[in-house]
C-alpha cells in the first residue's frame, strides 16, 4: 500500500515524550505521523505481517496452559467439585474469587470505550479497541467459573428461564440469578459494541488484503462497509447510544456481583458500601490489566506513536485515583465494623487483618493501597518498567482482595465450632492458571488477526481530520471542531 512517507526502521518503536504538553487545548495523540495512510499502515501491518518471535513463544505457553485448564475442568466435571479444596463453611473460594477477579478486569474496557467516550476524552481512541477485546476475553474467563462451580454442569441451563416440561423456573429474588442476567447482558453488549466499532477497520483490512482467503474472511467480517457518509451518520448515533447504554450497564454489573455478597448475612459481606466499592475496585484492576497488556503490546508491535506515553500516564492517573477509592473503602469498612457495634462484624474485620488469612490481607493492602501511591510522581507514571511492575502488583492485590473477602468471611463466621480453613488443591491452582492461559490465547489471536487500534477513530482525532483546517473564514466552526480535544 502506498504510504506517503518512507518508513524509517525505528518508527513506532521509540518513545517520544508527549506528557509535557499542557492539560488543556489540543494534545498530540498521534506522534510522528501526518497522513492518514501512515496510521492505516502502522496498525494494519501488525495483522498483515508475521508476528515477532515473542508472539509465538507466548502463544505456545498460553496454549499449554489452556490444555491444562481443559484437563482440570474435565477432571472436575467427571469427579465433582470435591476436587477443589472446598469444605463445609468455605463453599466458595478460588472459583468465585476468579470469577469476581475476571469480571472486574473487564470493567476498564467498558469504562474506556463508553464512559470516556461520553466525556469526550479523545485519548481513549488509542487504547479502546484492545481494552474492549480485553473486556470480552475477561468475561469469557469469568463465565467459566460459575459455569463449572454449579457442579452438575449439564443442568447449567436451569440458570435461564427456559420453558421446560418440569414447569420449573429460576428464583428471581436471588442475587445469584441477577448475576446471570447482569453478566450475560454485559458480555453480549460488550461484544456488540466491540464488533460495531471494529466494522470500519475490518473494511480497511479487507481493502488491503492480498490473499484470497484474507479477502474473503475480512470481507465477510466487514459486512459490506464502504464508508458511506449516510452510513456513518447512523453509525455515529448508534455508537453514542451504545456508549450511553453501556455506561449504566458497567456500573450495574459489578454492583450486582457485589449483591451476591452484600445481600447475604455473612459478617464481612453484609455491607452497603459493597456496590460502589466493587465498581471502583473493578475499574482499578481493569486499568492495571490494560497497562500490563499495553506496555508489552506497543513494544512488540511498534505502536508507540499511537499508544503514547501520554495514554499510559493518563491510565496511571486513573489507577492512582481508583486505588485511593479502594483504600478509602478498606478503611471505611473497618470503621463501620467498629462503629456498628455488631460483634460478629467487628470480629470478621479483625480476623481479616490478624486471623488465619492475615498474609492475604496485607498483600492486598500493600499492592492496592500502598504501592499505587507511587503514581503521585510523574517520573513513576512515565517510567515503562515501573508502571509495568506496579500494574502487576495491582492485579495481584485485586485477586487477593476477592480472596480475602470471600474466604476469610466464610471460614470464620458465627459459630466457632464450624470454623475451618481453605487450602487450595492442585486443581484449584491449575484452573486459575489455566484461565490466564485462555485469556492469553484469545488476546494473542486478537493481536494477530484483528485491528488492535481503532484506525478510523484515531484518524478522526488527528489535526488533519479537521475539515475546516486552513479556512480562515470558518473560525467559529473551527473552535467547535476542536472543543474538548483532550
Amino acid at each position, binding site marked *: 500500500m502506498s504510504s*506517503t512517507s518512507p518508513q524509517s526502521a525505528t518508527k513506532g518503536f521509540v518513545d517520544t515524550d508527549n506528557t509535557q504538553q499542557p492539560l488543556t487545548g489540543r494534545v498530540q495523540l498521534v506522534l510522528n505521523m501526518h497522513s492518514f495512510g501512515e496510521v492505516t499502515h502502522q496498525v494494519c501491518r501488525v495483522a498483515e505481517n508475521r508476528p515477532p518471535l515473542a508472539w509465538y513463544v507466548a502463544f505456545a505457553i498460553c496454549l499449554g496452559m489452556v490444555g491444562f485448564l481443559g484437563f482440570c475442568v474435565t477432571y472436575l466435571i467427571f469427579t465433582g467439585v470435591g476436587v477443589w479444596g472446598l469444605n463445609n463453611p468455605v463453599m466458595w473460594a478460588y472459583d468465585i474469587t476468579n470469577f469476581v477477579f475476571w469480571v472486574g478486569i473487564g470493567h476498564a474496557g467498558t469504562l474506556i470505550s463508553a464512559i470516556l467516550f461520553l466525556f469526550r476524552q479523545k485519548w481513549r481512541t488509542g487504547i479502546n479497541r484492545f481494552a474492549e477485546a480485553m473486556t470480552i476475553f475477561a468475561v469469557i474467563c469469568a463465565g467459566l467459573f460459575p459455569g463449572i462451580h454449579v457442579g452438575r454442569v449439564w443442568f447449567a441451563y436451569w440458570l435461564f428461564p427456559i420453558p421446560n416440561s418440569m414447569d420449573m423456573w429460576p428464583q428471581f429474588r436471588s442475587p445469584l440469578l441477577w448475576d446471570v442476567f447482569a453478566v450475560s447482558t454485559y458480555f453480549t453488549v460488550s461484544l456488540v459494541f466491540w464488533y460495531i466499532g471494529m466494522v470500519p477497520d475490518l473494511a480497511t483490512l479487507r*481493502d488491503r488484503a492480498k490473499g484470497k482467503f484474507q479477502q474473503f474472511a475480512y470481507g465477510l467480517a466487514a459486512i459490506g462497509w464502504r464508508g*458511506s457518509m449516510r452510513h456513518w451518520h447512523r453509525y455515529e448515533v448508534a455508537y453514542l*447510544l451504545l456508549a450511553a447504554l453501556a455506561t449504566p450497564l458497567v456500573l450495574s454489573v459489578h454492583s450486582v456481583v457485589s449483591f451476591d455478597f452484600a445481600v447475604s448475612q455473612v459478617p464481612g459481606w453484609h455491607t452497603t458500601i459493597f456496590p460502589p466499592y466493587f465498581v471502583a475496585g473493578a475499574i482499578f484492576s481493569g486499568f492495571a490489566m490494560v497497562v500490563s497488556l499495553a506496555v508489552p503490546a506497543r513494544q512488540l508491535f511498534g505502536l508507540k506513536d499511537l499508544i503514547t506515553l501520554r495514554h499510559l500516564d493518563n491510565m496511571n492517573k486513573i489507577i492512582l485515583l481508583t486505588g485511593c477509592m479502594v483504600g478509602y473503602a478498606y478503611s471505611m469498612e473497618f470503621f463501620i465494623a467498629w462503629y456498628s457495634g455488631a460483634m460478629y462484624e467487628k470480629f470478621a474485620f479483625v480476623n481479616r487483618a490478624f486471623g488465619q488469612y492475615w498474609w492475604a490481607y496485607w498483600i492486598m493492602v500493600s499492592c492496592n493501597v500502598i504501592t499505587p501511591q507511587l503514581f503521585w510522581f510523574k517520573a513513576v507514571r512515565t517510567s515503562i518498567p515501573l508502571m509495568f511492575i506496579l500494574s502487576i502488583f495491582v492485579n495481584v492485590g485485586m485477586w487477593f482482595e476477592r480472596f480475602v473477602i470471600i474466604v476469610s468471611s466464610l471460614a470464620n463466621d458465627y459459630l466457632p465450632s464450624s470454623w475451618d480453613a481453605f487450602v487450595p488443591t492442585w486443581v484449584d491452582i491449575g484452573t486459575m492458571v489455566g484461565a490466564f492461559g485462555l485469556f492469553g490465547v484469545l488476546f494473542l489471536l486478537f493481536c494477530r488477526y484483528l485491528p488492535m487500534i481503532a484506525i478510523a477513530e484515531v*484518524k478522526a482525532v488527528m489535526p488533519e481530520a479537521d475539515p475546516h483546517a486552513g479556512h480562515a473564514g470558518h473560525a467559529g466552526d473551527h473552535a467547535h471542531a476542536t472543543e474538548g480535544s483532550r
Partner: protein
Amino acid sequence: MTTHAHPYGIMAEFETPAQIMEAAKKVSAAGYRFWDCHTPFAVHGLDKAMGIKRTILPVLVFGAGATGATLGIFLQAFTNASSVSIWALVWVTGYPFLISGKPLMSVPSWIPVIFELTILLAALSAAGLMLLLNGLPRLSHPLLSNNRFRRASDDRFFVVIEARDPKFLRSKTEAFLKSLGAKHIEVVENR
C-alpha cells in the same frame, strides 16, 4: 465494453476532509439526490453539509428499551408470582414462589433483571437497526469491485453520484465533478 451503457455512477476522488466538505456542499446545492460521500472516518459536520436528515434510530432504540423493561416485569411476575398458563411456543405455567414469607410481587428484587433486559434489548436494537437502516450486511456492491475505491477505507475521500439520479447525465455530471477540483474521476461499472 457494453456494461458502460448502464454504469452504477461516477466517483470523484479527493484528498482531504476540507476538499470533500466543499464538494459535498456543491453537489447538494446542485440538486442531486442519489449521491453519497465515502470517507475513511466520519468527517465532522459532513452529514450536515450533505443535508442528511437526522436518523430515527434513537426513537426506535427507546421503544426497544421500553419493550425490554416490560418484558422483564412480565417475565418475573409470570414465572415467580402467578400460577397462570400461557402459550410461549409451548404451554408454560408460572409458579408462585413463597420464600421466607416475602410478598409474591417483590418489585425491588426485580429491578436488576428489568434493568438488564432494558439495556440488552436497547443495545441489540441500536446495533441491529443501525445495520438494517444502512442496508447492511451486504456482501457485494459495485463500489467494492472498484480497485481505486479501496482507498476509501484508507486515506481518500470519494463523492459518488449514482446513475439513477434524475439529474444524472454522464457528460454533464462528469464535467460538474471535474469543476469541484477532484483529483481523479472514474465511471463505476454496475456488476
